[in-house]
Structure formats: structure tokens, C-alpha cells
């Protein structure tokens, strides 16, 4: 190692393999459900999936001429937030001149469902009209988070993509020549975060231990400069609380070694999480290199090799625990970004040193080649085809390398080489080391990369050490800080929060138990109370079903299973029969019985009602 190693820091970083993204938006939806399903955050998508070419979210966020996000290199070679330095920020604090309005995102809405049931009787079926969640007034829905999904809107919307405008006629929107791919985006958790730099209150910070960029909700004063500062527009303003919020990289999960929600739920298994060690003292210089196209290499130079003994020693010196160094050695992110060099940063030209990297998509090249009569998986043919791919290399270069096609072509060649190499392996042919060598790899590396990219085992995709910096955590144990129900005599301690003489909480405590499969199904398919026996609260009874103890006992053969469960004495006596009756045939009967038709005089065991329903279920 020629270079002196400065202060070592660790960063939990992500790589996404765009070749495998099918644009299903599962990541966005699960993220939304977990984090932003709240008032004031309706328009907020910590994770969103954009179709490229497309305008992205918010609209045309990549147009930094307009939004002035990220950093600018001054003539003196120093970095300054593009929207202005400290004095300008304070001078414009009363109205941020570069802040996107809600129309640049979209006006969130709901539907007037109430109208469906409250509309007066008439000839027409009532409809649910859209209403703004901001004003409550009826709105005309004209835009949303994914309005141009899957190239919807074609050239009319796609031509507004800032990158399309830059590279001109390289991008075609005629159906036969069109291309698209998906770009899932979260916060980049940059090494040189311009949002943090823009925050006048100092409420935003980069966590020293794992590099996650967070907003201190108690310190944020709502000056909104971070929204402008972030060139990826991944800091959002909660319009109810008046505070900034952003993707937290699911830090409560990551701290205990679990992948983020978006990663965990990704059906394409295209996300990778791992630790990257870097030299924080090199960041400023690397982010300020003169030529934008050198930023990718400069950022790679900031990363440290966890297998290097000197790096390990320096990391230990700077308080990074051994298990983090061990984790960094197995990090898929380090492997894909630094060792194999197949992952690229998103828009390095913003000079923020983003830490969510992407493996660019190799278009459906094999089929295209096969159609022309060539061997679609032959290495030579594949390499030759890369320059004429349907997804123009120029477009990918604008996204990932500030317009330099070289690194993109190199990545695509590696992906093509992987296909050619693995075909020989799969066909039982002799391994051809020259294929791997032609892209600067070894056969062993290619097979390792194949395992990581194609097989994508859970344990290899997510290599996340548990948090350090807390004493317990450093011993490898994370104790839950505590459950709010675990107070003396509380539900978490087996109590009910003290004896209450009246109301819902009165009476015997309900035994806590793990819900069984049958109990769950019973509860979900019946209209009446189910589960363990308890006292019926008549005030809560909706008149449906046959709650235990309310009606006289009926014939055992005819009564639902839950009635039997309600009488422990009989339960024991008849348990062999019950086992039989838990057969599928028996269970199907819950449907009609729980339908509210289950009063006295309903169809008998072999009545038509039951047969009809059974038939329905089999038919569907």
C-alpha cells in the first residue's frame, strides 16, 4: 500500500442488479407500508421504481440546471453546494427558491368511499370520486408517482427525460425500437452528502458507525434546504409535521443484522447489502476531482480493501470491531463494486459519492443475436453486440458514469462473458479461461460472480453485521430496549394492566397463546368471535353467528367446531371425533355456517345450501 490510510469508516451500502428488476414495485409498496403510510407523507416514496427512459420521481429531478442539487466544483477546486454556500442559504431561508412543489411530485388523493353507502337511492350505481388529501376538494387526477411507468405516455412524456434530452436521437420511442428498464431508487446514503451540508440546523447527519444518513426529528426546524441539496430528491418534507424525512436504510433492521424492507421483499432478489470500508479523509479530495468522468474511479479509490492487513489494522485503530471487518471481507457490495467492478454509482457527477450502486442491465441480447442467426451465447458475438444494444450504452453512461461509455461497456462485457463462460460449464464443455481473461477476470471469479448474481443466496446477498457503538451490541447481543407493554402487571408481563371492574378489560384475562393455523383460519372465515372461550360482551355482539353460551346447546353433529371448543369438558370427551372433523370436508362447512345464515332451521348436514357453497369453492 503506497497510500497512507487515514481515518477508516464503515458504510452499509447497497448494490442493485438492474438485469433482474421486473418493475413490480414490491419494494416501493412494502417500504411505503412500513415507513410512509401516514398523514403528511402521502406523496413520499423512500423507495420508488422508475421506468427509464422516463422523468423519474419527482418529475425531472435529474435536471440540476433547474433544481441545483448536489455539489459544484469551484474554480479553486473546492466543493460548494450547487444551490449556494452558507451565506446564500441563510439569505434565502425565508423562501427556498429551488424547492419542488407538490405538483412536481403529485397531489395525493383518496376516494369518496362514503358516497358509495350514503348516496340516495337512484337508478345509477354511485361512484367514488377522487378527492385531494390536501384540501378534501374533488380533484382531477393528472399525475402520480409512476405516471410514465412502462413507457406510458410514450414519446410525449419520455422525451422530457433530462438524459434523453442530453443524448438526443440515440433514444427512440417508436415501438419497434423502444427500450426500457427499471431503476429502483432509495436514498444513496452518500459519503459526501449534500443534503447534510445544506441543513442549516445541523439536524441531518451521517452516522459515524454505519454511514446511514438520518434526520434528527427533534432538531429539524423545517428550513427545507435539504430537499434542495439532495440531487436525487430523496429527502422529503412532511407537510403535516413540518419536518424533513428520508429513507433510513431501515436502520432498526440493519442494526440487528436484518436487510432493509425493500431488500427483504424484493422478488427479483436483485439487492445486495454489505459493509464497505473507506478512508474518510480521502472523500473530500476524491469528490472534488476536476473531470466528472474521473469521479467513478476516484470513489473506488476511497474504498479500502478489507483483506489488506494494513487496512485491518487501521480499521481496528479507528474503533471498528473485528466482526465488522470480517463482515466487510464477505461483503457482496465490495465484491461487486470494487473487486469485480460490475456495479456503478448513480450519477457520480453530482459529487456526493453515492453508496447505492447499480449493475447496468444487459438488454435481451441473447435472443436478439439468435434471431439474426448467430450463436447468441458465443462470447465473440456477445462482445460485438454490446455497442449495438437496444439500450444505448450512452444512456447508461449518462446515468452511471457521467457520460463515459468505457466503464459501462466493460461491465456489460463482463456480464456477457459470464453467460458465455457459464454456458460451457452447464453444457459440460471444457472451461475456456480465455473468455474470462478477455474481460480481465479469472474463470473462478466469473463463477463466483455467477453464484452471487444468478443464484443470489440470501446469506450471500445480505451480509450485515449487527450494530456497534452500544456496549451490549459490541458483545454481539442486541437487547430489545423494551416493550411498552412490559410494565408491572402489564399485558407483556401476563397481566392486563391492573384489574378493571367494568368495560372491555373486565373479567378473566385472556390467555395469551400463539395463534394456530386452524384458529387463524377460523377467525378469518367466521363472522363471529372465535378462539379460546371467553365471556361474551353483548354490547359488542353484532348478532351474527352463535357465540358460545348465548344459545342452548345443539346437536353435536350439527354444531360448528368452535361451539365444541367452547365447552372444554365435551372437548376432551370427543377429541377423537374432533380430529376427524378437522378434515377439509368439515372445514369447508365453516363458510355457510358463519355466513349469518347459521340460525335455527338452517340447512341440515346434507342440505342444499351446503352443497351449493362446496360446489362453488371447488369450481373456483
Amino acid at each position, binding site marked *: 500500500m503506497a497510500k497512507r490510510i487515514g481515518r477508516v469508516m464503515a458504510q452499509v451500502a447497497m448494490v442493485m442488479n438492474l438485469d433482474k428488476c421486473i418493475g413490480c414495485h414490491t419494494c416501493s409498496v412494502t417500504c411505503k407500508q412500513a415507513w410512509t403510510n401516514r398523514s403528511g407523507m402521502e406523496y413520499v416514496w423512500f423507495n420508488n421504481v422508475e421506468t427509464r427512459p422516463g422523468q423519474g420521481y419527482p418529475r425531472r429531478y435529474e435536471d440540476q440546471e433547474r433544481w441545483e442539487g448536489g455539489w459544484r466544483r469551484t474554480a479553486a477546486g473546492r466543493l460548494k*453546494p450547487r444551490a449556494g454556500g*452558507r*451565506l446564500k*442559504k*441563510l439569505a*434565502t*431561508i*425565508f*423562501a*427556498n*427558491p429551488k*424547492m419542488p*412543489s*407538490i405538483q412536481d411530485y403529485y397531489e395525493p388523493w383518496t376516494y369518496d368511499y362514503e358516497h358509495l353507502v350514503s348516496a340516495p337511492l337512484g337508478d345509477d350505481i354511485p361512484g367514488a370520486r377522487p378527492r*385531494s388529501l*390536501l*384540501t*378534501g*376538494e374533488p380533484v382531477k387526477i393528472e399525475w402520480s408517482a409512476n405516471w410514465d411507468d412502462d413507457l406510458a405516455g410514450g414519446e410525449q412524456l419520455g422525451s422530457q427525460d433530462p438524459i434523453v434530452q442530453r443524448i438526443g436521437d440515440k433514444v427512440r420511442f417508436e415501438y419497434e425500437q423502444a427500450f426500457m428498464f427499471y431503476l429502483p431508487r432509495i436514498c444513496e446514503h452518500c459519503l*459526501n*452528502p449534500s443534503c*447534510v*451540508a445544506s*441543513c*442549516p*440546523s*445541523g439536524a*441531518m*447527519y*451521517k*452516522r*459515524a*458507525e454505519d454511514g446511514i444518513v438520518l434526520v434528527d*426529528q*427533534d*432538531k*429539524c*426546524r*423545517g*428550513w*427545507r434546504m435539504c430537499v434542495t441539496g439532495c440531487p436525487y430528491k430523496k429527502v422529503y*418534507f412532511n*407537510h*403535516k*409535521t*413540518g*419536518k424533513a424525512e428520508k429513507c433510513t436504510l431501515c436502520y432498526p433492521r440493519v442494526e440487528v443484522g436484518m436487510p432493509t424492507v425493500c431488500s427483504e421483499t424484493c422478488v427479483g432478489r436483485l439487492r445486495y447489502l454489505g459493509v464497505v470500508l473507506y478512508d474518510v479523509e480521502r472523500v473530500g479530495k476524491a469528490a472534488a476531482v476536476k473531470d466528472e468522468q474521473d469521479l467513478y474511479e476516484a470513489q473506488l479509490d476511497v474504498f479500502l480493501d478489507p483483506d489488506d492487513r494494513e487496512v485491518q489494522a487501521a480499521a481496528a485503530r479507528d474503533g471498528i470491531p473485528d466482526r465488522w471487518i470480517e463482515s466487510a471481507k464477505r461483503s457482496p457490495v465490495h465484491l461487486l463494486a470494487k473487486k469485480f467492478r460490475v456495479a456503478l454509482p448513480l450519477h457520480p457527477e453530482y459529487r456526493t459519492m453515492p453508496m447505492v450502486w447499480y449493475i447496468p442491465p444487459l438488454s435481451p441480447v441473447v435472443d436478439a443475436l439468435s434471431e439474426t442467426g448467430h450463436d447468441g451465447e458465443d462470447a465473440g458475438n456477445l462482445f460485438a453486440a454490446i455497442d449495438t444494444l437496444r439500450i444505448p450504452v450512452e444512456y447508461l453512461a449518462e446515468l452511471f458514469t457521467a457520460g463515459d461509455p468505457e466503464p459501462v461497456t466493460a461491465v456489460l462485457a463482463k456480464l456477457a462473458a459470464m453467460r458465455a463462460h457459464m454456458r460451457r460449464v452447464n453444457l459440460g464443455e471444457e472451461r475456456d479461461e480465455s473468455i474470462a481473461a478477455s474481460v480481465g477476470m479469472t474463470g473462478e471469479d466469473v463463477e463466483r460472480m455467477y453464484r452471487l448474481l444468478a443464484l443470489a443466496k440470501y446469506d450471500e446477498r445480505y451480509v450485515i453485521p449487527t*450494530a456497534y*457503538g*452500544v*456496549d451490549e451490541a459490541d458483545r454481539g447481543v442486541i437487547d430489545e*430496549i423494551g416493550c*411498552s407493554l412490559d*410494565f408491572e402487571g*402489564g399485558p407483556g408481563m401476563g397481566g392486563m*394492566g391492573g384489574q378493571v371492574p367494568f368495560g372491555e378489560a373486565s373479567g378473566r384475562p385472556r390467555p395469551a397463546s400463539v395463534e394456530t393455523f386452524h384458529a387463524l383460519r377460523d377467525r378469518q372465515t367466521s363472522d363471529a368471535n372465535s378462539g379460546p372461550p371467553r365471556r361474551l360482551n353483548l354490547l359488542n355482539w353484532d348478532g351474527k353467528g352463535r357465540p358460545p353460551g348465548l344459545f342452548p346447546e345443539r346437536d353435536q353433529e350439527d354444531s360448528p367446531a368452535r361451539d365444541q371448543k367452547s365447552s372444554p369438558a365435551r372437548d376432551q370427551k370427543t377429541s377423537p371425533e374432533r380430529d376427524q372433523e378437522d378434515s377439509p370436508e368439515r372445514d369447508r362447512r365453516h363458510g355457510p355456517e358463519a355466513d349469518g345464515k347459521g340460525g335455527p332451521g338452517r340447512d341440515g348436514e346434507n342440505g342444499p345450501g351446503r352443497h351449493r357453497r362446496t360446489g362453488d369453492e371447488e369450481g373456483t
Partner: protein
Amino acid sequence: MSPTALDYLLWGALPYVVIAVLVGGTIWRYRYDRFGWTTRSSQLYESRLLRIASPVFHFGLLVVIIGHVVGLLIPEGWTDAVGITNDMYHVTALSLGAIAGVTTLGGITLLIWRRRTTGPVFSATTVNDKVMYAVLVAAILAGLATTLLSAVAGLTGGHEADYRETVSPWFRSVFVLQPDVAAMSAASGAFKLHTLVGLALFALFPFTRLVHAFSAPVWYLFRPYVVYRSRDREPTPVSRPIRRGWS
């Protein structure tokens, strides 16, 4: 004219009540509602009008505040000593004050009009906001009235309503715990009204969105751009005892 009991109540006791509420309320708010301590900006909803009105209002207000500080804290004797005549002082103060006051009033008028007419902004306006706006506008109007009356008095040659001999000595005396009730009770009605509305505004201050003024981020100028922070060694200390959320 000697001060009445009401004068003692208003100018002798009330200021201390207001100071107690302002200081105590701010401490209370900071301890218990740091999360609610924000500008509650509505720029996301509407930017076009705000970009004109908000700076006009705020910068106007800054000049007004500086004017108040100068007018209230600097004794007449000091300006006399450096050779500023009473007329010079008043012409400057009144003209600057009138310009700043009218600017501020114009700004807030536009802001309130925007708030009323822009749907989402109006929906996000709380009762608290409305009360605050009423008091704030009243304070500005009363203040402008004193400025105009002083200007008229100045033009007609009368100087009885000079606040530098009534309001200012009283204001300073409040802080040395010897309120000069007699001085204040000699002030004109307009000044008394303005002072009372001002006191009301200070009393409301900690309980409204006005608190954002206390967090003017001046130290931003002196800190490095990127902030690093370590994980808390222990879970964030809670400022009040943990209790069940539902009781």
C-alpha cells in the same frame, strides 16, 4: 398626573408576568415539544406567492426589530452625546420605521391572503395560527399607528408623544427590576395600545409557530458542511417519565 392602580397593574406587574410566561413557556416547549418546534412551512403547497411575500415580510420584520432595539435600548442622552439632534433622530427613525412597517404589513397581508385563498394552505392552518396572526397583525397595525401619529405630531411641531421619554425609559427600567410606571403612564394611548398588544404577542410566542424565530440557524455559518454523529451510547434519554401511552 400620577399613575393609577391600573397603571401599576399594566406597566408594573404585567411585564413580569409576560416575561415569566415567555421564558418559562419557551423552556417548557423546548423540553416537551422539540418535535413540534418547526416553521411548519407551507411552501410545498404554494411557492409562487410565498417566494415574494415571505422574504418581504421577514426582512421588513428584521428591520422593525432592529428599529425597536435601537429605539428602546439606546437612551436619548447617548445620541445627544454623539451629536445627533432630536429632529435628525426622529426623521430617520420615523421614515425608516414607516418604510419597514409598511413593508412588513404588506408582506403579512399577502401571506394571509395566500393562506386564506390557497386551499391546501388554508386546510393546514390551525386555530392557534389564526390567533397568532390576529395578534401579530394587531401589533404591526398599532405600531404603524404610533409611527404615523408621531410623524404627524412631529410635523405639527408637538413633541409630547416622544416615546424616548416615556416608553423607552420604562422598557429599560423593567429589566433593572424598577419599573418606571410613571414614565409609561405618561405615554400616549397609541403607544400604550401597541405596548399591550406587543406584550400579548410575547406571551403567545412560546405556544405558537413563532418559536421558529428562536432557532435562527446562525451557527450554520461556522460549522463544517458534513455532520457526523455517533450512535447514542444509550437510548435517547426521555424528557419525561415513560408511562403507558393510553392513560
